């Protein structure tokens, strides 16, 4: 594994090798290109989408695909489904990146601290991780979202008022990032801890200690870069889960605030009229499947490339 290599030079060439391996995996590469396009769409969607996601026309509701120039028809409020699908990509990708980042920061810091100090502290920290592990992540996210979402905003004071303001400006995304981040760092914390434990015994850390470097320096300058690779690969495998969490939350009404388009919310809205207007469900379901599929291919490709031992 590359992380065990002490010398940065070797590590770099190994990285290059890994990327070459990744590039040879055509499925992963084309998925990566697909995601790249999706990212571009998400960034430039304001120019690409024919309409704004919330622009409704209550006289042109439930148009079938192709009618009156709407590629995928319109929904129950006369909003352009195609535009909402495109904007939905922005939501899903934002969630994917931000939730991953949130859980990455929490998980890696937790694992670093536990692994570095070891002993009793480590034992207690890991016991807490075990407890959290007893409840499926999604159920915890739901609980936290119920907590975030309930309440009368007009009564909020102090921190919660500020939080609510930011959250509603982001269409409810902030609480989703935090909700997912707060609950899904557990797996990464374990990986980071294990890595730290093994790195700690290595000579270069011993040397740092002898030289009298401070703990933060050792943690973030020396240990962190060495476990970055493993953790990124591990986290990339979890990204599809975050996309699914967001859509499930939106499906059960705890996700983004309407009219922000989320594929999960669109499925939930379409379910009622599934017999008359199947396209309202097919479109978001397909978009979601393709995106998750692409993330899975890329995640697998990365793992295979960086960790050839696991390649089957």
């Amino acid at each position, binding site marked *: 594994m590359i992380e065990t290599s002490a010398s940065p030079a070797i590590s770099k060439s190994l990285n290059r090798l890994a990327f070459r391996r990744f590039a040879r995996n055509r499925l992963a590469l084309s998925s990566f290109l697909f995601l790249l396009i999706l990212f571009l769409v998400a960034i430039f969607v304001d120019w690409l989408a024919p309409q704004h996601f919330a622009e409704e026309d209550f006289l042109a509701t439930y148009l079938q695909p192709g009618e009156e120039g709407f590629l995928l028809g319109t929904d129950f409020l006369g909003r352009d489904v195609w535009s909402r699908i495109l904007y939905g990509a922005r939501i899903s990708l934002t969630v994917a990146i931000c939730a991953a980042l949130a859980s990455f920061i929490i998980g890696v810091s937790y694992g670093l601290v536990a692994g570095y100090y070891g002993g009793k502290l480590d034992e207690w920290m890991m*016991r807490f991780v*075990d*407890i959290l592990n*007893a*409840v*499926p*992540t*999604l*159920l915890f996210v*739901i*609980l*936290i979202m*119920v*907590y975030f979402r*309930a*309440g*009368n905003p007009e*009564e909020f004071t102090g921190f919660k008022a500020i939080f609510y303001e930011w959250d509603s400006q982001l269409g409810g995304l902030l609480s989703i990032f935090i909700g997912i981040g707060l609950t899904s760092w557990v797996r990464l914390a374990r990986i980071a801890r294990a890595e730290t434990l093994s790195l700690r015994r290595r000579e270069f850390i011993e040397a740092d200690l002898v030289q009298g470097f401070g703990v933060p320096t050792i943690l973030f300058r020396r240990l962190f870069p060495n476990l970055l690779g493993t953790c990124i690969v591990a986290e990339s495998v979890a990204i*599809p889960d975050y996309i*699914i969490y967001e*859509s*499930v939350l939106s*499906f*059960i*009404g*705890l996700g983004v605030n309407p009219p922000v388009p989320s594929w*999960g919310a669109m*499925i939930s809205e*379409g*379910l009622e009229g*599934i*017999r008359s207007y*199947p396209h309202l*469900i*097919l479109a*978001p*379901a*397909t978009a*979601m*499947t393709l995106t*998750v*599929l692409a993330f*899975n*291919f890329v995640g*697998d490709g990365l793992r295979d490339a960086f960790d050839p031992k696991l390649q*089957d």
Partner: protein
Amino acid sequence: MLNFLVRRLGSGALSLLVIAALVFLLLKALPGGPFDTEKSLPPEIMRNIEAYYGLDRPLWEQFVRYVGNALQGDLGVSYSQRDLPVIDLIAQRLPISLELGLYAILLGLLIGLPLGVLAAAYHNRLPDYVATLLAILGTSIPNLALAPMLILFFGLFLKWLPIARWTTWDSKVLPTLALGLGIAAVISRLTRSSMLQVIQEDFIRTARAKGLSEVSVLGQHALRNALLPVLTIMGPILAYLLTGTLVVEEIFAIPGLGSYFITSISNRDYPVVMGIYLLYGFLIILMNTLVDILYAWADPRIRLE
């Protein structure tokens, strides 16, 4: 062994207590009480109802009382279904969810194991690619997307199967597929990779050298050993089922625990929500312990500390 069991049970109980406290605190901190209606009941009536449910007592007392009752198997009564004990509610709905989950696992094994063995047997040949592709597809279609697509295709387009409820055998097919295909994919991937590892081991080479047929080698010797890692994912599969049933039951209008969980969250039916969280935590801890024991029993090399 006994030592291990005691320790696992102890930490399991601790986990449940922490979960209970966490859920309790988060839910109690919520405004918009369970008894608000459009007519917003007069305050004296609210007081009567709150006294009836013991909500007028201090928070810590409510919690202690709750834990004490829970230890005796009493999880309180539902707020929205007046006086219906939560434990009865769970007893009514859990079997349906269990049935659905069981079918899904059976389907997963039925499809996943053969597919995984096939893929390993034809490593890097066409069947392997087909199986792997199917498996990635299977893990990638979220059941939130799969379930409506199944309804559209088999229920509305072909009109072969009912699209909702959980009554006759044919109404159970689509929900089982929606939940089980994902499991099949996971199992087939895992079976394949663990088969590939086992095949390289000495005893397989020995078996082959002895001239045993390929079917016998793979089916008897390799599969038995390859099944171990599959066993370990029973914990994650349970977690997958618990969350999967939320969506699948909601979409197919199945009166199981998952769909009721969603209902009770929007009803603010705290006792029910807490009860379901505790139950889920309990099931997962139980499953993980069970898997550890099974694992040790199946593989003598592993010793339980």
